[in-house]
């Protein structure tokens, strides 16, 4: 055996030495073995919704742009013609985006808690011009800014308009951050001109908006008293940070801070508009900061007896023009020009009606005027309706109204949340809309021309699963042979003869020209063609987003085969939240693979747990559908949320699908689908069936081990607690993962003297990493703490292994863990850098190994844990392992590093048995590499090569049919799938450089030679016998 091993090793070494390029990804395979889908995330609609920018500003390109910030902390600019990303930037998690503000070719991004970081990007190129922290230097050491709720409260940006006569003055902008600090920055380099904290601002006063009206800067603030909030203002000089007057008090009662705004009137004055008791009120602030007399508080639209419900603020650009919307109590919306104190117009048929959905308003400023837009869904006509009001000049009274209807798929996209309107109208006076939908899609919409759709909900994939496809179409065995009669088989074979030419052509092709590159050029999947390629690289990837939208993705191209919405989404969010998804039936024998989806459904404060059966090929959910919205109803399992869900070792009698067990909040076990046979089966193995739940008490987290007890009603089982592990006080669970135990090739590890270290193999291991923050009560983002890793046997509750990181680790970085078979990997950041630890568990025995066949309740297995820690030059965002069909191929660790690359680290580098010092002959025999603290990141091992996979957090691997290769799917923000991971090289696939034709020709020539020479030699021999 050793001989064989050595032989293989030698062979491998030999192959490695001649084909080093095969190991690394070849440039020509980029985009063939992998695909990368760039996403931006669902747009943030508050306070700056997606904005359409007219093409005249982007000189480089003809097409218009859409600027947006998203929930995934991304600032993105899209091409409005085709929906492609022009550029995008993702910020760190600790630096959340707040708002963006465009000005000519500049995009100013405000981010961080309290809007304390400003960055200026070029709109056309996406290059960062400058970055500036608005926190004064003496406070920098104390950490970030003050966070308000919502995050954008107390932040505002205003660009200082150019004065026509004075071109030499540097252009600048004024930023309000943290509700109190006002900074004036240069636009060209971000240099701080001045900064001040508004005097008088404190815990009860917060400033929320500023406006530049000529020279003075008017700032609007809110003062919190015991029961009411009142408005106040202050006015600063643009040139020097000195208040022009005391704080101006405005007698007002404010319920919602958002319903107040300040509008410049151009002549140095500012106008404060707010909503109070059904009225929209207005008050003027003079240039010197004086507030008008109390008597001058007026209704914006006095008389007429109109009662309003709210003010709709359409953004700072429209405020600058003095245009706001007032929503009346019947739902009707008036367009109000604040400067002229009059109603300019109104949206027709905008009052609330059962015939239409709530309207969504948006607007954009044009050169002199504004374009306002309203979209709603008409229930009667089942179309989307857009209504546009174009005010070409705000000083005049002219308005042009127009409208159009558009088809819209409410089942797959939900309702619309926002419609960004284009700043230019077409010749029919109709705009182009960019819709943001509740399902997380971004769609371009025009009259009669539904445009591109970006499915941004793919950034929120909760769980993804690979589904293996059936055999290639032509080679597929369609019938079950055992049940076929002779005549039947004969006739089937005759009927299938028509496929013979195709098969022979395919065979000949494969035999002569198949290479790695050609083999992976596969036919894209669609709903009618769902067959794998010959190497099993092509699979169906089923992804379920948090909001309950399902996507089936072709693993070889990244194209969506089908998508389906499971639950209703609206402006309030989704009523469905996906919890888990399981492969319950494979596609063997021509049947269709099935998945079970577990979700939490919240409708009107009632929370239920629902399960669905999904056909992976068609996307059809079995069971009833809602008659109103045609969404599948699924099967309601119980009320409340589930605590845990797992597959049972039983199959359903009818569907032959694996049965799911779900633990409800009262720790009862429910099975899906319900089946009496399975219930009886559970009763039979109830003392061998273990599951855990994690409960949080006041002090700490408790991990409970449970078994099912006697059957209760409706097929459920109550649970009995078998063991409990309480964690320490304030100990926070960071990660909780099961050990990966998919394919096991060897039970041990052979040492240099040919003895064996038997692996400690236990499929019940649960790996938990925790953090105990050091300082009580301090904010989580800045504190550090003690990190611990536990490996717990979930059947008997024994802690197999426990370790504590010696240095404190920052809680923002966390402690990443993962474990495969007997190999535990964890990574963290401490004061001196990024570390990665590798631990292997072996049975401490000289006899034969007994795990995993021995019961965990049998005699104790003594464990020998070999651990080693290494330094990594990069951050680790996620840890995964490669996998293979039989487990013979070396397992490699896959990490997502700090540069958003996906990198593999060789197994031998992370071997905890790497000898320290000079390796002994035994170590050499084992080919152990001497220990070095640093693990380098090899450029050759960057499997994402030039792609930057932003936000990749979850790694999902799946084996291909060839042993050497594993598939990897990474998601988080971007989607990335590669089948280019070959830890031991492509030993079972001939490389492209292999000359197959030459081999075939040589073989052919030799055969001909033998055929010719054979008879001749025989003749000669015969002749020789005569002499």
């Amino acid at each position, binding site marked *: 055996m050793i001989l064989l091993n050595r032989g293989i090793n030698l062979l491998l070494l030999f192959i490695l030495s001649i084909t080093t390029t095969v190991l690394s990804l070849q440039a020509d395979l980029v985009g063939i073995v992998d695909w990368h889908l760039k996403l931006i995330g669902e747009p943030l609609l508050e306070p700056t919704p997606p904005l359409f920018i007219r093409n005249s500003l982007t000189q480089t390109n003809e097409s218009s742009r859409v600027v947006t910030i998203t929930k995934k902390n991304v600032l993105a600019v899209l091409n409005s013609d085709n929906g492609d990303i022009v550029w995008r930037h993702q910020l760190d998690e600790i630096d959340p985006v707040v708002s963006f503000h465009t000005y000519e070719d500049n995009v100013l991004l405000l981010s961080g808690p309290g809007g304390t970081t400003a960055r200026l990007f070029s709109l056309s190129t996406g290059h960062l011009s400058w970055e500036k922290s608005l926190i004064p230097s003496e406070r920098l050491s104390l950490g970030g800014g003050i966070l308000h709720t919502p995050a954008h409260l107390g932040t505002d940006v205003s660009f200082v308009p150019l004065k026509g006569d004075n071109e030499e003055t540097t252009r600048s902008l004024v930023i309000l951050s943290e509700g109190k600090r006002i900074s004036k920055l240069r636009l060209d380099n971000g240099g701080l001109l001045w900064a001040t904290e508004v005097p008088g601002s404190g815990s009860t006063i917060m400033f929320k908006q500023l406006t530049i009206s000529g020279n003075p800067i008017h700032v609007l603030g809110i003062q919190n008293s015991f029961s009411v909030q009142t408005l106040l203002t202050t006015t600063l000089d643009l040139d020097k940070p000195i208040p022009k007057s005391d704080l101006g008090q405005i007698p007002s009662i404010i319920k919602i801070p958002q319903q107040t705004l300040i509008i410049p009137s151009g002549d140095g004055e500012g106008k404060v508009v707010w909503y109070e008791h059904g009225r929209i009120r207005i008050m003027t602030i003079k240039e010197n900061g004086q507030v008008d007399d109390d008597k001058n508080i007026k209704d914006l639209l006095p008389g007429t007896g109109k009662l309003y419900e709210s003010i709709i603020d359409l953004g700072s650009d429209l405020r600058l023009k003095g245009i706001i919307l007032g929503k009346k109590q019947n739902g009707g919306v008036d367009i109000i020009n604040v400067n002229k104190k009059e109603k300019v117009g109104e949206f027709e048929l905008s009052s609330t009606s059962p015939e239409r959905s709530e309207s969504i308003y948006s607007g954009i400023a044009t050169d002199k005027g504004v374009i306002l837009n309203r979209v709603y869904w008409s229930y009667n006509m089942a179309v989307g309706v857009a209504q546009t009001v174009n005010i070409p000049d705000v000083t005049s009274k002219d308005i042009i109204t127009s409208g159009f209807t558009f088809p819209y798929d409410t089942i797959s996209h939900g309702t619309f949340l926002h419609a960004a309107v284009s700043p230019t109208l077409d010749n029919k006076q109709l705009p182009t809309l960019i819709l943001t939908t509740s399902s997380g899609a971004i769609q371009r919409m025009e009259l009669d021309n539904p445009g591109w759709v970006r499915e941004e909900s793919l950034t929120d994939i909760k769980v993804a699963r690979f589904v293996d496809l059936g055999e290639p179409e032509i080679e597929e065995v369609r019938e079950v042979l055992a049940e076929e009669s002779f005549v039947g088989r004969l006739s089937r074979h005759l009927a299938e003869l028509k496929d013979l030419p195709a098969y022979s052509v395919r065979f000949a092709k494969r035999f002569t020209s198949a290479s790695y590159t050609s083999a992976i050029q596969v036919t894209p999947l669609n709903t009618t063609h769902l067959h794998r390629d010959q190497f099993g690289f092509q699979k169906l990837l089923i992804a379920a987003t948090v909001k309950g939208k399902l996507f089936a993705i072709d693993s070889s191209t990244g194209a969506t085969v089908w998508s389906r919405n499971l639950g209703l989404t609206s402006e309030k969010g989704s009523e469905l939240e996906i919890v888990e998804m399981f492969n319950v039936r494979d596609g063997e024998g021509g049947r269709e693979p099935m998945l079970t989806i577990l979700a939490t459904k919240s409708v009107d404060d009632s929370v239920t747990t629902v399960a669905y059966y999904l056909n992976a090929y068609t996307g059809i959910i079995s069971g009833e559908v809602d008659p109103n919205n045609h969404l599948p109803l699924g099967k309601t399992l119980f009320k409340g949320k589930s605590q845990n869900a797992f597959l049972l070792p039983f199959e359903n009698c009818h569907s032959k699908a694996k049965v799911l067990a779900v633990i409800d909040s009262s720790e009862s076990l429910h099975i899906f689908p319900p089946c009496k046979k399975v219930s009886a089966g559970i009763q039979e193995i109830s003392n061998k*069936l273990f599951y855990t739940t994690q409960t949080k008490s006041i002090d700490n987290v408790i991990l409970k081990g449970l078994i099912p007890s006697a059957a209760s009603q409706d097929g459920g089982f109550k649970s009995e607690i078998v063991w409990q592990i309480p964690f320490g006080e304030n100990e926070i669970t960071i990660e909780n993962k099961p050990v990966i135990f998919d394919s096991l090739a060897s039970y*041990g590890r*052979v040492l240099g003297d040919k003895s064996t270290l038997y692996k400690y193999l236990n499929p019940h*291991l649960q790996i938990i990493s925790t953090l105990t923050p050091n300082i009580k009560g301090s904010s989580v983002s800045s504190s550090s703490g003690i990190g611990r890793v536990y490996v717990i046997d979930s059947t008997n509750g024994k802690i197999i292994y426990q370790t504590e990181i010696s240095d404190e680790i920052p809680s923002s970085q966390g402690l990443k863990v993962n474990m495969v078979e007997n190999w535990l990997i964890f990574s963290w950041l401490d004061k001196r850098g990024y570390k990665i630890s590798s631990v292997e568990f072996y049975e401490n025995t000289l006899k*034969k190994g007994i795990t995993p066949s021995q019961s965990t309740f049998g005699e104790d297995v003594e464990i020998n844990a070999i651990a080693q820690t290494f330094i990594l030059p990069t951050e680790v965002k996620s840890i995964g392992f490669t996998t293979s069909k039989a487990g013979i191929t070396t397992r490699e660790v896959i990490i997502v590093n700090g540069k958003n690359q996906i990198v593999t680290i060789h197994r031998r580098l992370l071997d905890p048995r790497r000898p320290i010092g000079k390796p002994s002959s035994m170590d050499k025999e084992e080919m152990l590499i001497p220990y070095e603290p640093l693990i380098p990141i090899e450029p050759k091992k960057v499997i994402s090569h030039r792609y930057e996979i932003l936000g990749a957090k979850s790694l999902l691997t799946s084996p291909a049919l060839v042993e050497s290769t594993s598939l990897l799917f990474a998601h988080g923000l971007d989607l990335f799938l590669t089948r280019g991971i070959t830890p031991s090289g492509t030993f079972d696939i001939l490389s492209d450089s292999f000359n197959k034709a030459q081999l075939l020709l040589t073989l052919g020539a030799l055969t001909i030679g033998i055929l010719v020479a054979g008879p001749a030699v025989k003749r000669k021999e015969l002749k020789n016998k005569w002499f």
Partner: protein
Amino acid sequence: MAIRLDYTVPQNKNNSIPNPPGHLPPTSAKQLTAKSAQPDPDVLVKQNKKSTELKLRRAWDLALAPAKSLPMQAIMLYFSGSGVQIFSLGMIFMLLTGPITAVFNIFRAFESLRPTSTPSTPTTNKKSSELSTVSAEPSYGPLALPMIAYVACQGLVLALGLWKCSTMGILPTGSGDWLHFETRLDPPEWSAIRSLSMS
């Protein structure tokens, strides 16, 4: 009927140089028949004894030959190194297969050395003695000891080969060599973690 060549050399009449064993003085066919008709039993016995002794001595030589080559082979093995290479492997192959084939072919190897059994005592009954000498089949009986020695020596060679194998680490002696044939039952318990870890 075999053709017997007569290389009669007329010179060298004086018998100072002894004839080689089994040498029959050149005689004519006539003499031969005359001699055979009148064999001298003493001479025959003497001759037989001599040839038997000679054969035994040669048998011992043959038996001990492998042992004599051992040091040489050991030196060669030492120089071939402990790496798994084509040369050392070829040598080991020879060392392992050689003794085994030699032992299997032991009877053929000793066939020519079988002594014809000598009449125990020169009896007066010439006729019978003559008959017994003629009918006496050559037997392996007296070769038992050399043969055992031969087997033992080949065993030594084999042992040398095996020792070399073990130093090269290609003898399946450790548990690691049988690891791939080990099988285990499935774990008896089922847990939520196990169902997750298998997926």
